[in-house]
């Protein structure tokens, strides 16, 4: 018998150690191999044929002969004399240089089961295998490849697409530099609860990398850069692993609260041949049912709402992303004859009122910022907070964000004390809330509700009348007012199937004037940062295209200058949309911040344009758009020219092309 210190054991341990190192260099699956040393290799590892698989027995033979040689001539072999790794050969010794079935073909098989309609990407070498498979093996259909000119545009387009279509597309990015470009829109999608599905290329195995760029574009943990603002990521090391993680990523992204996910497609895994006989399972996708509110808490919420004198339902954007969500809200509001404010509750509904009013109960459904909804913070030298509701007002929160929160980025807003919190999806919970309310409403309360509803309807009508009167004040102004643009547009789209594709302050007048009653008419996606509005709009217009909808984007000027390459994408892929420039020739909000700082410090306020104005020279947005293949007119500063120009532009869009009007507008 041998003891552990015997030379035979030492030699055996040494051989085993060298064997492990050898295998690690041969495979991208370093960690997996170390963990499963001696275990059965999975079928995808067998499928690697670029370098013939070497098992432990073969290795021992090799090692024995190599060791003999090494002991006989211990000199170092010059680099130029080092043999290349043995290539796979046929039976007659010829090098195998082609394959009919690559790993990326299987990846496409997997992704097709998830019914993606598009892949949106700018090119990247670390996903060249997968791109080729999508186009040739997959036939460039379901998904179809959409060419972008910047990864920021790719991911932002994915956000816009989901906001209309309700399901994700694939945003493909290069693993390091591409993901760095894409970080901002992924962050915005995280804040927007938008399940963007990102696939990032990367080449993990050093032996798969070519010298130079492949190394500069590779990372050992490529998704780390966006992990703080994604819900999940994975780096599959086998095709079976890829299949499982691809399906898992989709399920996680689509389960409320919805958020972005990143799936890394390893370059070696993409490009290595796949054994034609390999059978790799593709898991079935079963989306998780959304979490519903606890029945006892629902009963309590119903009791508070039915007993309230003036309940107000405040709605977050995620609630009205579906027709079902809108219908349930209308049902609940009409049952209670309660005022509704926020998101995409039908704007002409008599219970729709913009101002919060004077509630005694506030039902907050998936509010991004409950605190900001019922409080205001005065931005003076010493900040003060004022409650927007009377003391004793009961607050009820329903949000899945109580189930999931990350630490670093502070988009969760200030903590709001509430009286009842349901960690649940609002759309999944409202049906039981309606039923609970119905059981509690007495005939007397019904009469009371009817009278309350009449008062709210009167307030709604008064608000509508005020809107028209306020519009008159700025009707003939040049630069053109937001009110004029909103009414002129409404005059021409009211009988069309239209979609206002991105939210934001510049849409404030449209929100007041137009009749919003369908989920795609207002996505609520409010880009809280410059750079992404244009590509979000193009992505939403891409989703609207097959329905023949008129996509409308009121586009901030400063924002467009960050990623205007997406205009080319819209023209190239024949994505029809109408873009109205909100051209105020400045980063106006930032100018106002500087102005605030100057006045607060008793300094010169006339310098606020330095670093914030976008003039001298004025940017000619019409020429930019024309240069990208768009129909465009402008600059238009005379309000009387807006109507005719809109008519011409809409005619172009209805022919299937994108059109832009550069309208010089009031600041905000």
């Amino acid at each position: 018998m041998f003891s552990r210190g015997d030379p035979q054991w030492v030699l055996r341990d040494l051989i085993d150690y060298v064997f492990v190192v050898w295998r690690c260099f041969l495979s991208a699956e370093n960690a997996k191999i170390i963990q499963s040393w001696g275990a059965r290799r999975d079928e995808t590892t067998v499928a690697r044929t670029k370098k013939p698989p070497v098992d432990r027995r073969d290795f021992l033979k090799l090692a024995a002969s190599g060791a003999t040689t090494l002991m006989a001539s211990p000199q170092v072999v010059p680099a130029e004399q080092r043999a290349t790794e043995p290539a796979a050969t046929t039976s007659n010794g010829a090098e195998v240089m082609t394959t009919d079935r690559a790993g990326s073909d299987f990846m496409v098989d997997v992704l097709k089961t998830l019914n993606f309609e598009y892949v949106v990407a700018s090119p990247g070498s670390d996903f060249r295998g997968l791109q080729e498979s999508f186009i040739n093996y997959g036939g460039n259909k379901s998904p179809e490849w959409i060419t972008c000119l910047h990864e920021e545009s790719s991911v932002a387009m994915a956000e816009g697409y989901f906001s209309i279509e309700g399901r994700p597309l694939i945003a493909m990015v290069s693993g390091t530099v591409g993901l760095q470009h894409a970080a901002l829109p992924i962050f915005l999608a995280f804040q927007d609860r938008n399940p963007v599905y990102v696939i990032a290329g990367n080449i993990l195995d050093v032996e798969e990398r070519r010298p130079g760029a492949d190394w500069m574009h590779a990372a050992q943990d490529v998704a780390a850069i966006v992990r703080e603002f994604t819900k999940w990521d994975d780096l599959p090391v086998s095709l079976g692993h890829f299949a499982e993680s691809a399906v898992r990523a989709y399920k996680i992204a689509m389960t409320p609260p919805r958020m972005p996910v990143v799936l890394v497609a390893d370059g070696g895994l993409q490009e290595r041949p796949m054994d034609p006989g390999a059978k790799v399972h593709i898991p079935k996708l079963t989306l998780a049912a959304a979490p519903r509110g606890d029945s006892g808490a629902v009963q309590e919420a119903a009791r508070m709402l039915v007993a309230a004198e003036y309940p107000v339902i405040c709605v977050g954007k995620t609630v009205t992303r579906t027709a079902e969500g809108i219908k349930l809200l209308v049902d609940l509001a009409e049952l209670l004859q309660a005022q509704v404010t926020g998101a995409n509750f039908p704007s002409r509904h008599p219970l729709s009122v913009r101002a919060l009013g004077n509630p005694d109960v506030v039902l907050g459904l998936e509010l991004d910022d409950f605190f900001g909804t019922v409080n205001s913070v005065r931005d003076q030298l010493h900040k003060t907070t004022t409650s927007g509701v009377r003391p004793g007002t009961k607050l009820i929160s329903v949000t899945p964000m109580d189930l999931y929160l990350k630490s670093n980025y502070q988009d969760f807003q200030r903590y709001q004390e509430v009286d009842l919190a349901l960690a649940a999806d609002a759309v999944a919970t409202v049906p039981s809330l309606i039923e609970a309310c119905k059981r509690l409403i007495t005939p007397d309360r019904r009469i009371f509700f009817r009278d309350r509803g009449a008062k709210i309807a009167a307030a709604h009508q008064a608000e509508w009348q005020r809107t028209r009167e306020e519009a008159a004040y700025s009707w003939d102004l040049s630069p053109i007012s937001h009110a004029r643009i909103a009414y002129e547009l409404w005059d021409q789209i009211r009988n069309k199937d239209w979609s206002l594709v991105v939210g934001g302050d510049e849409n404030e007048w449209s929100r007041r004037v137009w009749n919003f009653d369908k989920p795609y008419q207002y996505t609520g996606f409010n880009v809280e940062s410059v750079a992404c509005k244009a590509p979000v709009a193009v992505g939403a217009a891409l989703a609207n295209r097959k329905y023949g909808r008129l996509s409308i984007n009121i586009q901030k000027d400063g924002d467009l200058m960050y990623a205007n390459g997406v205009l080319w994408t819209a023209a190239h892929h024949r994505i029809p949309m109408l873009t109205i420039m909100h051209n105020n020739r400045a980063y106006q909000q930032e100018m106002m911040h500087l102005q605030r700082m100057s006045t607060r410090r008793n300094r010169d306020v006339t310098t606020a344009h330095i670093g914030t104005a976008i003039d001298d020279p004025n940017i000619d947005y019409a020429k930019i758009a024309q240069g990208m293949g768009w129909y465009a007119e402008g600059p238009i500063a005379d309000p009387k020219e807006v109507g005719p120009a809109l008519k011409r532009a809409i005619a172009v869009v209805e022919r299937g092309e994108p059109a832009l009007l550069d309208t010089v507008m009031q600041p905000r």
Partner: protein
Amino acid sequence: MNHDLRNRRLVGMGIWAFVVATVFLGCSAARVESGQQASPTEAAPSGDAENGKAIFKKDGCYECHGYGGQGGVTGARLSANPISFAAFVQYVRAPKNQMPPYTAKVISDKELADIYAFLHSLPKPPDVKSIPILNE
């Protein structure tokens, strides 16, 4: 980029508009209580409307209130707003809500008088009934 979340909250804006309206109504109410006339040019020194227009732009008043004083997402309507010059100056110097304070070091009483004159020189809006699109 920095962002004012309050400016991006529909409901928050509703609160803000309500508070602004309350302040202006409060000014009017205080005037009535003290027996003052609600004259738009009450105690107003003569101002240079043309210069006031230039200052309105140069000092950035238009950023919140619009070039025509029509109001906007973050600023109240000033055109055809019948508050006294005294109330106007008082609010500019020590605003109650989100508006930044403009002390005499930043803008003089004379300049405020010019702006006040500019605001009162603005034409009345057209009748809503005269604009067909607003009546459809």
